[in-house]
């Protein structure tokens, strides 16, 4: 069953047509990668899935993005609830300049998901365990999150998303500021998280898409050119544009 179903979706930045009639069905509890040259619209599509683009002046859409059967662009959609259910992790780790504990607890408190200290403690521990940070930092929870290494900061950001119990995690080039070892660890983490969450990831690193995603979407100039199983995209893509891009002949 598709977790995210995009139907005839268009997005404009004022007069610029950034996403052109996108149709894609993203399956649940899998990693789906979005690849394509810079400016092709992959990040725009990712950001449309939790309506972060709404904050950009002049951005307007047509068509639908259905999550679990509900169109998130319906007027009655509560965007705060949507963003809680569809968490986002950005290119550069962006922990708040507060303690590690407070970073993870932040969403719980702001969204009033929990106010009881023991419940918050339990959720912080569970979230940090899910991103394999707990054992290393359980004695340093009151230290500033900014003191962590970049890799750990990114893990913390994922923990912050997980704490509010989303069912979809969007990642926008989550490893682009990490070294190869840290990248590999975050990839392993994503592989573990996919058993619990539907993960959609934008990446410029095609080996990363090939290594960890199940499905891959290739976008070009605002259009979805090909959406297929990753192994097909990287061994025998159907479209010439995809072949040219994955083999490095353009882009």
């Amino acid at each position, binding site marked *: 069953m598709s977790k995210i179903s995009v139907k005839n979706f268009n997005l404009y930045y004022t007069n610029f047509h950034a996403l052109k009639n996108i149709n894609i069905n993203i399956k649940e509890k899998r990693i789906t990668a979005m690849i394509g040259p810079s400016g092709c619209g992959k990040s725009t599509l990712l950001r449309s899935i939790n309506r972060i683009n709404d904050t950009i002046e002049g951005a307007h859409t047509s068509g639908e993005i259905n999550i679990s059967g509900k169109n998130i662009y319906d007027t009655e959609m509560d965007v705060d609830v949507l963003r809680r259910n569809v968490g986002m992790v950005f290119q550069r780790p962006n922990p708040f300049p507060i303690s590690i504990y407070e970073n993870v607890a932040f969403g719980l408190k702001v969204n009033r998901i929990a106010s009881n200290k023991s419940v918050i403690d339990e959720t912080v521990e569970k979230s940090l365990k899910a991103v394999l940070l707990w054992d290393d930092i359980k004695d340093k929870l009151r230290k500033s999150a900014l003191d962590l290494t970049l890799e750990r900061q990114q893990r913390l950001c994922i923990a912050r998303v997980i704490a509010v119990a989303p069912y979809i995690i969007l990642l926008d080039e989550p490893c682009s500021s990490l070294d190869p070892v840290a990248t590999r660890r975050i990839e392993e983490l994503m592989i573990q998280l996919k058993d619990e969450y539907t993960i959609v990831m934008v990446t410029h690193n095609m*080996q990363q898409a090939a290594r960890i995603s199940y499905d891959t979407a290739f976008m070009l100039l605002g259009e979805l050119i090909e959406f297929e199983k990753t192994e097909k995209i*990287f*061994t*025998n*893509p159907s479209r010439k544009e*995809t*072949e040219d891009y*994955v*083999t*490095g002949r353009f882009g």
Partner: protein
Amino acid sequence: MRHFDVEMNDLQNRLLDMAGLVQAMIKAATQELVARDPKQADTVFCFEKKVNIQEIVIDDKCLKLIALNQPVGADLRFITSAMRINSDLERMGDEAVNISRKAFDLIKHSELNPLVDIPKMIEVVQNMVMDCIRAFNTNDSELALSVLAKDDEVNNLKNRVFDDLKILMVKASDMETIQRVVDLMFIAKSIERLGDHATNISEDVIFMVHGKDVRHPRT
């Protein structure tokens, strides 16, 4: 042109050079038998060394292309096919050597019977080899498919050769004649194996062009 494309072209050219050597070996080995010309053995053995060296060089080149460039799509299919074709070509060279060795002994004696079906096999197989290499060079999957269709013809000819040789063997009253019949059987088998390798190469060409695995259709 990108450095990677230069390297890929070099790989293709090396395989074509190797294929040229193998074709020359097959021609020489079969001429040795049919034209009863022992001098052809020199060509076979001289080229075998070159083919063996090329096999190692090409394998090494493929490994480095994969390790250093992480190829995908058509590039990946080309390199994996090149590795298999490389191995098939080397084995074709070995079969040419086998034919040459047996022919060298056989032509010391008078002919048992005029060769009829073996030259026919040679002609079909040489065409198969030429076509599979041309298909590889030009990405021509139709030509590759036509090679697959000829494999049964070679097998049928081999069976006919074997049937004739078995009759000769039954009639034979001395060990020397039996040995010559056995040698001819080995030669027929080697020619058939050349056809099998040409078939393998054609299957690789189809995979390389379409990403479709046509090996073992009955499994």
